[in-house]
């Protein structure tokens, strides 16, 4: 059974493992530095669908199907699916997964949804409540732009701190297993808000939440950054990553030598014109279910911290001048 240690961290004892994983991305992501690692990609930003919302649903369904196929399973083998996305009322997930016939738990954690879903899937599998669970999330540049910013063809300039929403989806299949990478611990984060109001600087809004979750985790587990092969954050980008270093340095924690960010891994900041890096639910989801899992398979990673970060604002709250609350959920993934 899972048990809580310290303030926040939950240690899982029955090795809920990532037995299958799948990733789907768009063209820009495929053109990026880790483009070859994704299972599928599509040059067409609508993925053969009529609208961008439908395209995002298609992304999620494809990611789940790919992940299940890779571990020789079908929808019927899955007891529960934890899914979420950025669209209003999470229609990317509900419409994408409605035909699968899997018990559905819809989540909203903004861009932190991957580790939120993964943590919940791991906890339910660990407890024995279900045998097989899936965690999936997605984002689409075009559907996010039209919801949060301007129409695609509107001629505007982005600030250097703005981030580029990843078009992509990633799904993980969780089951108890002895020889696959397993989720050893989860740490749900608290909402942190240090008053950032600039919706074009999400990294800055999320960095405090990321720092808080890491601090809690290190103190609960009595470990330090050097104990892990890598500490990967979701989508802090270049600005948010630097702020995270500074916030942690005030607590005498230095993660510079171990840290990387999915938003910096998925795009080439110099060549791809994405300003401060990638963002969106699909950013950490697609990187986890490709790049990270491949490195577990090759033996490069044995013990890592993976933490998706989210900005919990809405277009309405931004227009009303509210600041942007951040959230970060962490999982410790290990292989023996």
């Amino acid at each position, binding site marked *: 059974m899972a048990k809580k240690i310290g303030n926040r961290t939950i240690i899982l004892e029955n090795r809920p493992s990532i037995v299958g994983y799948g990733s789907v991305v768009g063209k820009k992501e495929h053109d990026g530095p880790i483009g070859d690692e994704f299972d599928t990609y599509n040059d067409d930003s609508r993925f053969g669908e009529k609208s*961008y919302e439908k395209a995002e649903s298609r992304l999620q369904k494809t990611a789940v199907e790919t992940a299940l196929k890779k571990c020789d399973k079908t929808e019927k083998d899955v007891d529960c699916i934890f899914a979420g996305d950025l669209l209003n009322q999470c229609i990317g997930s509900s419409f994408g997964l409605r035909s699968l016939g899997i018990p559905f738990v819809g989540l909203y954690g903004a861009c932190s949804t991957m580790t939120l879903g993964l943590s919940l899937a791991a906890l339910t599998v660990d407890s024995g409540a279900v045998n097989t669970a899936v965690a999936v999330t997605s984002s689409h540049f075009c559907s996010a732009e039209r919801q949060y910013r301007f*129409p695609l*063809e*509107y*001629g505007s300039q*982005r600030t*250097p701190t703005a981030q580029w929403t990843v078009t992509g989806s990633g799904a993980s299949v969780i089951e108890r297993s002895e020889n696959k990478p397993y989720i050893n611990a989860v740490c749900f984060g608290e909402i942190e808000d240090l008053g950032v109001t600039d919706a074009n600087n999400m990294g800055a809004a999320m960095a405090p939440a990321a720092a*808080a979750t890491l601090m809690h985790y290190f103190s609960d587990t009595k470990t330090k950054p050097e104990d892990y092969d890598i500490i990967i954050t979701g989508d802090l980008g270049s600005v948010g990553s630097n702020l995270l270093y500074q*916030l942690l340095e005030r*607590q005498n924690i230095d993660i510079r030598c171990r840290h990387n960010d999915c938003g910096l891994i998925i795009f080439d900041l110099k060549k791809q014109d994405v300003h401060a890096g990638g963002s969106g639910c699909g950013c950490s989801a697609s990187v986890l279910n490709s790049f990270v899992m491949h490195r577990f398979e090759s033996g490069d990673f044995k013990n890592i911290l993976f933490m998706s970060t989210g900005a919990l604002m809405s277009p309405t709250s931004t227009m009303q001048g509210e600041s942007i609350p951040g959230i970060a959920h962490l999982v410790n993934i290990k292989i023996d």
Partner: protein
Amino acid sequence: MFPKVKEYSMMVKKQSPPSPKLKDFIWAFIVGGLICVIGQLLFEFFGMLNMSQKAIKMAVPSTLVFFAALLTGIGWFDKIAKRAGAGTLVPITGFANAVVSPAVEFKSEGWILGLGANMFKIAGPVIVYGTVASVVYGIIYYLVSLF
């Protein structure tokens, strides 16, 4: 523990690279100027067609609006505007783009509540406050002309 809101906003400011203002100014100046040159050329061109002055003053902006709308529709306008900034925004081309881009985008929600309702989402405020400003200007003009 964490810095206070004020201190953090200083940290954020320090870490956030500023917009390349000089580059933006130069691009806006060149592209905005070019659009004006094109407008002048159109003016001369329509003049050669023996059109009346009144007709030319209608034809020049109409032509510019048409091409801005066309470039928006085929997906080029935002690529130019990305560099040009105010250069494409300030002339009448920016207004055309602001109307056409949501029209293209919201077609997926239908002709009436999608395209029709959202077409002036960006340009609407310009029309509202443009009208208000002209009323205020009119009143001031009237008052001044009394003396």
